[in-house]
C-alpha cells in the first residue's frame, strides 16, 4: 500500500479522478499545524486520508477536501447546509427529514433568540434551513439554525410560499459554487430568493407563480447540460417559460 502511494495533484481547477480506496494524503494532526477539513467521500484513518467514493477530488481555498460525484442520495456530512422538512415534535426536539437514511433532530434552543420561554414554534410540514453539526455513522444527525456567535445568518424556518424541488447532489454543489454565474444570470431576468441545501433540495420564491416555474425549470437544466451550455441557454429558457 505504501509503495504505490502517489498523492494526487491538488492544484486548483484541475481535479483528479479518484476511486474508493485511493490514498489521498498522509495527515497526522500531531505533527503538523495545518488544519484541513474533510467533506463527502473522504475518510481519515491511521493517519492517512482515503477516498470512499469515486469521483473528482476537489479542494477549496479554505482547505476543504471533498469528492465531487454524481448521486441523488444524500449522506449527511458535518457542516453541510441542508433544507429539511419538519416531521414531528418529540420533547425538546423536532424531528426533521433531510433526505438521508435517518431523520435529523434539532433542539428548539438552537434558533436565534430562542430561550426556554420564547421558543420557536414550527408545524409539521414546515421547511427549515440549517447546518449539520453532528453527522456520525451510528447517530441521528443534528441540525442547528445558528452559527457559533448565536446569529441566524439566514438560517431558520423558510417563509410561506415558494416552491421546493429536488436536484441531484452535484447540481446543488454546482449552484452554490462561488464562481458560478448561473444564479446571477437568472437574476438578470427575474428577482428571486433561493435557498440551496446540499441535500439536493432547492427552494425558490418569486413574486409570481409563472416565474417560480421558470426558475425551477432553468435549474433543472443543469442536470442534463454542462455549465457553459446552461449559462448560454438559461435566458432563452426563462424567456420561453415566462
Amino acid at each position, binding site marked *: 500500500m505504501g509503495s504505490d502511494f502517489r498523492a494526487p495533484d491538488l492544484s486548483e481547477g484541475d481535479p483528479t479522478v479518484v476511486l474508493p480506496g485511493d490514498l489521498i494524503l498522509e495527515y497526522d494532526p500531531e505533527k503538523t499545524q495545518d488544519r484541513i477539513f474533510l467533506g463527502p467521500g473522504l475518510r481519515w484513518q491511521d493517519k492517512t486520508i482515503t477516498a470512499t467514493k469515486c469521483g473528482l477530488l476537489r479542494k477549496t481555498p479554505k482547505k476543504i477536501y471533498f469528492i465531487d460525484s454524481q448521486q441523488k442520495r444524500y449522506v449527511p456530512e458535518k457542516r453541510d447546509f441542508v433544507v429539511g*422538512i419538519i416531521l414531528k415534535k418529540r420533547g425538546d426536539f423536532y424531528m426533521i*427529514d433531510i433526505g438521508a437514511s435517518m431523520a435529523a433532530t434539532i433542539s428548539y434552543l438552537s434558533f436565534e433568540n430562542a430561550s426556554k420561554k420564547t421558543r420557536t414554534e414550527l408545524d409539521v*410540514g414546515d421547511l427549515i434551513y440549517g447546518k449539520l453539526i453532528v453527522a456520525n455513522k451510528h447517530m441521528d444527525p443534528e441540525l442547528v439554525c445558528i452559527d457559533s456567535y448565536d446569529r441566524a445568518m439566514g438560517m431558520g424556518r423558510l417563509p410561506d*410560499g415558494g416552491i*421546493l424541488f429536488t436536484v441531484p447532489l452535484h447540481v446543488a454543489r454546482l449552484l452554490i459554487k462561488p464562481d458560478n454565474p448561473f444564479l446571477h444570470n437568472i437574476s438578470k431576468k427575474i428577482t428571486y430568493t433561493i435557498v440551496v441545501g446540499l441535500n439536493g433540495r432547492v427552494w425558490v420564491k418569486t413574486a409570481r407563480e409563472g416565474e*417560480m*416555474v421558470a426558475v425551477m425549470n432553468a435549474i433543472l437544466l443543469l442536470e442534463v447540460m454542462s455549465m457553459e451550455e446552461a449559462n448560454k441557454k438559461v435566458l432563452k429558457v426563462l424567456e*420561453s417559460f415566462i
Partner: protein
Amino acid sequence: MKETPLSTCERTALTDMVECGLRHDRRGFLEARDTTISFGREYGSCSVILGETRVLAQVTCEVVEPRASRPSEGKLSIAVHLSPMAAPHLEPGGGGGGAEVDALQQVLERNIKESRCLDLESLCIRAEESVWQLRVDITVLNHDGNLCDASNMAAVAALRHFHRPDVLVEEDGRVTVLSHATSPPVPTFMRKVPVCVSYALVCPQEDKCLVLMDPTHVEERVMTGKLVAGLNPHGDITSLVFPGRVALKKEQIMKCLEHAFRRAKIIAEMVQQAVEDDLQTRATEDRPSGFRDKLVSDEEYKRQRFTHLMATKVLTIPTESTEAAVPMEEEPSVPKEQDPANDSTNNELVDDPDDLEESRTSAVIASVTKTSKNKKKVKKTKDVKMDSDSEEEQQHTLLTSQDLQ
C-alpha cells in the same frame, strides 16, 4: 425506506399554481406527457415511456389444463411488480407490494381480462385437456405518476404484439409445441383496444375542483381525488375507479369521460400503429434490434424536452408535435366548473328530466366518497355503464362531427 414527507410548501405551491392554470412542467391541464412505445427483441415484450414513468411488459405463454367451469377457454393472468427501483419508498419483494400494487392490478384485470377484449376461446388447444395460458408481467422501472395508464398501455401493446408458438395435436391427443423456426408463430387475437385514462382532481378550495390529466408523482401526492376510467374507443366503459374524498358534479364526470373517449381513440390508434409498424419491420429484418436502438436514457429524454421547449418558445407544446397530445379546443372549458345552462354539449348530453338527474348526481357523490368499499365501486361502474349507453351513442355522433370540423 420511508417515502419523503410532503411539505406544506410543495402542497400549497402546486395547488396555487394549478389555480393559476399552471402545471410544474408547463403542460395544459388536459395534456398528456410524451408517450413512446417500443418493442423488444422477443414477441410480446413492450416498454412504454410516459414522461419519466417507465413500464416494461412481457407476455409469456404455457400450456395448462383449463378450468373445469370453462373447459374451452384459455387463461390470462396479469401481475404487476413494483420494486424499490421504481421509487425508493416501495417495498422490495415481488407482487406483495401493498395497496398500490393491488389497486393497479385490479384496474388492469378489469380493463383487460374482464372486458373480454382478448378472445380466450382462441387460446384453446383441446377442450377440457389443454389450453394456452398467457401471463402478462408488468414491471415498473420508474415511477413518476400515472402508473395505471402506462401499465395498461404496455400490457395491451404487449398482448397485441405477442405471437404464441404453433401447436401440433396428434391423433392420440398428444400436443407438441412447435418452435418458431419450424412453423410461423400465431398472433393473439384481440378484438378491442382497452385504454386507461387517469385524471387527478385538485381542489384548491372546498367547492372548486380542477381536473388534471396524466398526473405526475407530485401531482398524485397532492391531489384530493382521482378518476381512473378504463374504456375503449368503441364506447364501452370497463371500469371506473374514483377514490379520494371529493365530490364531483355529474357534468364534470361526463366531461371527463367524454374527453377520455377522445383520448382513448388517440391512444388506441397509437398502440395499434406501433404494433403494426414493429411487426412489419420485424418481418423484413432477420434479427430485430429490440430495445437497443429505441430506448433513450432519462438524461437524453430531459435534454430533448428542454431543447424542444426552447425551440418552440410557446407556453404549451403544440398538438401536432407530440403524438400523444390531446386536441386543445376543449381545454379551457373542461377544467373549470361548467354552467350547464350555457353549454350546449351538456344539454345535448343530459336528456333526462331534471329531478332524475339530480337524484343521480347525489347518488354518484354518495357512492364516490366511500373509497374503501370496492363493491360499491363495482356497482357504480355498472350503473354508469348502463345509463351511459345511450349517451355514448350521442357522444359518438358529437365526436365525429367535431372531428370533421
